[in-house]
């Protein structure tokens, strides 16, 4: 173990401590906390496994190091995302949007890989680094973007939870209360590792959409053709198409993901030696999430083929509408998938807010903390979730509209968030030799350009729909 750290210290990477302060630390500064002890136990297991040779230890190492990437990707397959995919399949069928959604997940991989390197190299959260490196002026802008976006998204998660359980006849108040209870129980572990495994187990249920898709007997030839040709796009480029396009981008790339994955990597204790596994973790998460997203589109495609108007459907209505095609069990799985999507995302998104708040307020922020020591962290997490849950119970709120707009807002807030990330991950003072290579920068800037372009297209579609018709060649 000592060897691992010595090797890491001798490594070429210039770690944050080397540039922050070259003065030797006074002994009185070093305080060992409960959080340190828990994290050290996790790292001991990693080191012991890494020291062994063979396939089984490698698999065990993989098991120990994965988590944040899968969680962030399946967490982002949340209520509004799954509803966007369902609406896409129902309105446009199998065509342009299948390869487009795959592209959005490639974009998500490019972006999240940067947070893996940043978290492993600095051991600090995203909000903390933005405040430290760019100062409070820009730091607060970024925090406001995150907090507003997270709160609105949390509202939509509870909408999905309510709608998903509503299919089984559960009353809204009881559904929301049960979700809050699950969120609180997961926190009771006071242990990052245990919390992560519980949420990972829950997140796998995102794949419930796959059997539902198979029950609709998709036309695999049409699926293959769509993936290769990006066609057809029924109706061409209209205001509706642009809104769905943006909603699908916002369903895969959002600011909370940057903050969550970097903070989770720091909380898990990953180091520069673990970056390779962090990348595999992210890629695996993106693959699973893409499969679930495509399955959701395939599952609702029969509604398009039978010309059923699904424009204002909520999650439970999608499940009911699908019943003639997939049967009672298929519809139940769809509704359960919606509940799961909202539940896992409610947990990860509220955690990302709590991490960011703790980092900025300089309060303890870790899932390894007992409640006494992490009071602020847990309270921020719970208060935000309770407030969002309460809003959902107000009667008469236009839920479907909120759900689609939340994803649009996420896309609009992403370019400024990405600029911070881009600058941090190219900051040689904190990243050392782990700064982004040129090809990664080209990809990252490509993602920024795509997001800004999509946002501007949305602006044109709202302000000057006629101009949009010209762009679309009509």
């Amino acid at each position, binding site marked *: *173990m*000592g060897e691992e*750290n010595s090797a*890491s210290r001798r490594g070429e990477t210039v*770690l*944050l*401590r080397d*540039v*922050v*302060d070259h003065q030797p*630390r006074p*002994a009185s*500064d*070093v*305080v*060992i*906390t*409960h*959080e*340190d*002890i828990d*994290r*050290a*136990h996790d*790292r*001991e297991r990693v*080191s012991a496994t890494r020291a062994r040779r063979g396939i089984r230890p490698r698999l065990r190492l993989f098991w120990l190091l994965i988590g944040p990437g899968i969680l962030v990707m399946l967490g982002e397959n949340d209520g509004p995302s799954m509803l966007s995919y369902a609406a896409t399949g129902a309105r446009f069928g199998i065509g342009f949007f299948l390869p487009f959604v795959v592209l959005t997940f490639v974009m998500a991989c490019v972006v999240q890989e940067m947070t893996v390197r940043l978290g492993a190299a*600095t*051991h*600090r959260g995203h909000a903390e*680094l933005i405040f*430290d*490196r*760019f*100062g409070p002026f*820009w730091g607060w*802008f970024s925090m406001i*973007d995150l907090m507003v976006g997270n709160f609105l998204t949390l509202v939509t998660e509870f909408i999905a939870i309510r709608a998903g359980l509503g299919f089984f006849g559960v009353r809204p108040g009881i559904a929301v209360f049960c979700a809050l209870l699950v969120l609180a129980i997961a926190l009771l572990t006071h242990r990052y590792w245990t919390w992560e495994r519980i949420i990972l187990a829950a997140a796998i249920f995102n794949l419930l959409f796959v059997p539902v898709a198979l029950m609709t007997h998709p036309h695999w030839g049409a699926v293959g053709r769509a993936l290769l040709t990006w066609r057809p796009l029924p109706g061409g480029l209209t205001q509706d198409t642009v809104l769905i396009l943006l909603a699908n981008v916002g369903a895969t790339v959002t600011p909370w993901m940057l903050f969550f994955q970097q903070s989770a990597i720091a909380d898990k*204790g990953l*180091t520069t030696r673990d970056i390779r596994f962090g990348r595999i973790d992210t890629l695996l998460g993106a693959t699973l999430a893409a499969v679930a997203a495509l399955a959701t589109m395939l599952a609702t495609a029969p509604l398009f083929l039978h010309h059923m108007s699904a424009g204002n459907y909520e999650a439970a209505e999608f499940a009911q509408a699908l019943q003639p095609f997939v049967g009672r069990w298929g519809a139940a799985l769809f509704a359960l998938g919606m509940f799961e999507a909202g539940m896992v995302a409610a947990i990860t998104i509220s955690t990302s807010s709590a991490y960011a708040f703790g980092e900025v307020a*300089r309060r*303890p922020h*870790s899932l390894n903390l007992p409640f006494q020591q992490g009071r602020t962290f847990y309270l921020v997490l719970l208060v935000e979730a309770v407030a969002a849950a309460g809003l959902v119970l107000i009667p008469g709120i236009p839920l479907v*509209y909120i759900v689609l*707009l939340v994803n*649009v807002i996420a896309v*609009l807030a992403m*370019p*400024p968030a990405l*600029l911070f990330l881009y*600058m941090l991950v190219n*900051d040689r*003072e*904190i990243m050392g030799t782990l700064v982004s290579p040129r090809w990664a920068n080209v990809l990252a800037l490509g993602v920024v350009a795509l997001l*800004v372009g999509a*946002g501007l297209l*949305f*602006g044109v579609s*709202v*302000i000057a729909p006629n101009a949009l018709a010209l762009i679309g060649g009509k």
Partner: protein
Amino acid sequence: MESEVESSHGGDVSRAEVRSVIAALEPDQIVSAKEHHHCPRRRLTRTEMVLFWALRIYLVFMMGVVFYQIWTGVR
């Protein structure tokens, strides 16, 4: 080494645990080290400032568009 280290719990952290933490974690992973040593602030270049402001204005403008859409939708 462990004699130089304090515990936030008073006496409830054993020497073995302290030894284990020191061995297992990189120095800048220890919470107290992170609290005491922050990353220094960097100076933004003119180009960076322009980019920051441009994207901020873009976001504010686009949020206006979103609110306009909500307003027209409600009407």
